[in-house]
């Protein structure tokens, strides 16, 4: 007696497109999940096939959860795509709480008509990123919205991690006198994405810095367990906004040294051309750390010893300031406020 599945024709990944049936919860949905998602993410948790995943957690840790929706346009950009981004972004948010990320969940909102081949490319990229980071996607969900009510694919990921004993990292922990470290150049991700935006298009060799930073964080925490007070990834809003958030949360001011902030020449040039400020451009593989002054050197050394922190630098220090201003000594010799991002970062003509 032949044994066969109850659907026999595999998905036509090459020419097929997402249709409403793939989100209706029936056999088409089951097939999509099996042939695209489960196949790519393959792990014992997902294979449980239940409404959720049952997970093991080491004893004696605090837990951290973080979530992010990923809606980048275009979906594919130099250096990455929405798939790996959605893995890195959430791993990083977990790591920025001082936690070791253990598990991810992924929830997809697909637009009717989205090519299955692109979906597969994105899911495979996610799976590769998750594998490389050692953080499996343990459960997920897929919905389909009508054409014109989505934008290809949106991916919301949630991460679960554990905080080792003795680690206390949080945005409210910065104190005057602390030192502000940055793990590398800023603006790479945003410029890479902009370079592919319709009507802005320009040629560049800049690639997104999208990367998981949890091993970098682990190295920093190991180097100075109590010395790292704040960690944050300067994503949307850029370095400027991230520092303002920390200043507000901690009730402090900051003084930056413009000359110390690393910006790749091409990023600088692209910003010049479009009237943008690299301080407000998104990053996806960089972190800001606020450290106790006495821990600075050892943390910086640990960062520089890690491939994701090789270009780590000290960019400023925390000040006492009832206005919570982030100020900057300009390379030119002046001083100015570095404010929150206001509105969107739009290319300007003036």
């Amino acid at each position, binding site marked *: 007696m032949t044994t*066969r599945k109850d659907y026999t024709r595999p998905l036509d990944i090459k020419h097929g*497109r997402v*249709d409403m*049936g793939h989100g209706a919860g029936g*056999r088409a949905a089951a097939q999509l999940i*099996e042939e695209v998602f489960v196949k790519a993410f393959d792990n014992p948790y*997902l*294979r449980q096939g239940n409404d959720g995943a049952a997970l093991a957690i080491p004893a004696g840790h605090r837990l951290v959860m973080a979530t992010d929706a990923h809606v980048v346009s275009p979906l594919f950009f130099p250096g990455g795509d929405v798939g790996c981004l959605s893995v890195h972004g959430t791993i990083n948010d977990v790591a920025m709480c001082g936690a070791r990320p253990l598990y991810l969940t992924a929830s997809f909102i697909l637009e009717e*008509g989205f090519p299955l081949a692109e979906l597969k490319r994105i899911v495979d990229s996610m799976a590769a990123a998750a594998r490389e980071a050692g953080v499996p996607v343990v459960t997920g969900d897929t919905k389909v919205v009508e*054409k014109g009510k989505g934008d290809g694919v949106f991916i919301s990921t949630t991460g679960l991690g554990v905080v080792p004993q003795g680690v206390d990292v949080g945005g409210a922990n910065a104190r005057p006198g602390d030192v502000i470290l940055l793990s590398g150049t800023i603006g790479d991700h945003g410029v890479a994405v902009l370079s592919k935006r319709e009507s802005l298009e320009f040629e560049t060799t800049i690639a997104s810095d999208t990367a998981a930073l949890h091993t970098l964080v682990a190295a920093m925490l190991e180097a100075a367990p109590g010395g790292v007070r704040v960690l944050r990834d300067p994503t949307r809003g850029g370095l400027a906004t991230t520092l303002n958030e920390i200043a507000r949360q901690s009730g402090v001011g900051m003084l930056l040294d413009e000359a110390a902030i690393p910006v790749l020449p091409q990023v600088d040039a692209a910003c010049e051309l479009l009237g943008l400020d690299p301080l407000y451009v998104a990053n996806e593989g960089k972190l800001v750390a606020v450290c106790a002054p006495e821990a600075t050197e050892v943390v910086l050394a640990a960062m520089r010893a890690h491939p994701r922190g090789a270009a780590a630098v000290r960019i400023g220090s925390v000040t006492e300031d009832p206005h919570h201003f982030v100020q900057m000594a300009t390379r030119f010799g002046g001083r100015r406020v570095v404010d929150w991002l206001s509105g969107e970062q739009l290319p300007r003509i003036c």
Partner: protein
Amino acid sequence: MKYIDEFRDGDIARKIAERLRAEALPGRQYSFMEFCGGHTHAISRYGVAELLPPNVRMVHGPGCPVCVLPIGRIDLAIQLALERDAIVCTYGDTMRVPASDGLSLVKAKARGGDIRMVYSAADALQIARQNPQREVVFFAIGFETTTPPTALAIRTAEREGLANFSVLCCHVLTPSAITHILESPEVRQYGTVPLDGFVGPAHVSIVIGSAPYDHFAEEYRKPVVIAGFEPLDVMQAVLMLVRQVNEGRAEVENEFTRAVTPEGNLTAQTLVSEMFELRTSFEWRGLGEVPYSALKIRPAYAAFDAERRFELGYRSVADNKACECGAILRGVKKPTDCKIFGTVCTPENPVGSCMVSSEGACAAHYSYGRFRDIPVRVERAAA
């Protein structure tokens, strides 16, 4: 629900079943074609087949408007949406019918066609009113039941002067299809399809009345029992057919007198003949070209005829080679006679049109009756 629930009563079903077992002659085989997909659906969904004696066999007919829609017609609708940028409005049933190039309306929609499911022809009119700058085409399918609402939509559009509304008319006629089957060589000459009688259409007959069937009983000596679409109606009709056969009668009987009169709905008939005229020939999926079997829009309303308005040329497209829909629609084969039934062809990925509508013989059997006969072993899935 009054006039519905009473006709689904299991206790009465058992009584009729008993009568049937008592009256069906043990030495004889009875083969009846239920013309309509509505009957096919009732038989499958309520498990009517289980209650019939083993020597009474039901043969599915071509009476599912979705099943008989040929590929070329779906292609026209897709062309209007994808190449002519029209808003194509259609009943939900047609969305998954396979067309050329692996497309269907669902897939054409996913490719960017503005294809909208409507519940009523009146909704398509409303869409036309709301989108004056767009061409709005109502992809009109169906038998005599569904034609009057389309006629009404055209009349309304004409009275309102709706300049952007037209109809891609694919309305077909029941009696011509029945004639075609009775004239088919399998039935007439070889006797490979022994048809002892017909369960006649329910809702079609509300509109056209019972009189049009008299001809079949007389000319072809086949009993006809017009029956409602509730399961008890079907069982009673079968009982009435068995009785006609046993008694050597070939009459038109009406089990559905609560809704069907000999003359039908004259208001609807008048409206339909004002808007539509006979096509000399029309392609049916499975049956091929059937003479005088469909309607087209009269020249007086040419402005509302999408075929004229967009100068559409019909191109016939052959069905998938493996598909036995044609033979199934003519009653010559059963779904399980098709080599790809339940494997390559499933409701999820229909190859033929009979696998699309839940009234299609293949879909009905796959969705409701498969447990009886498929030697499928379902592998333990990974997830």
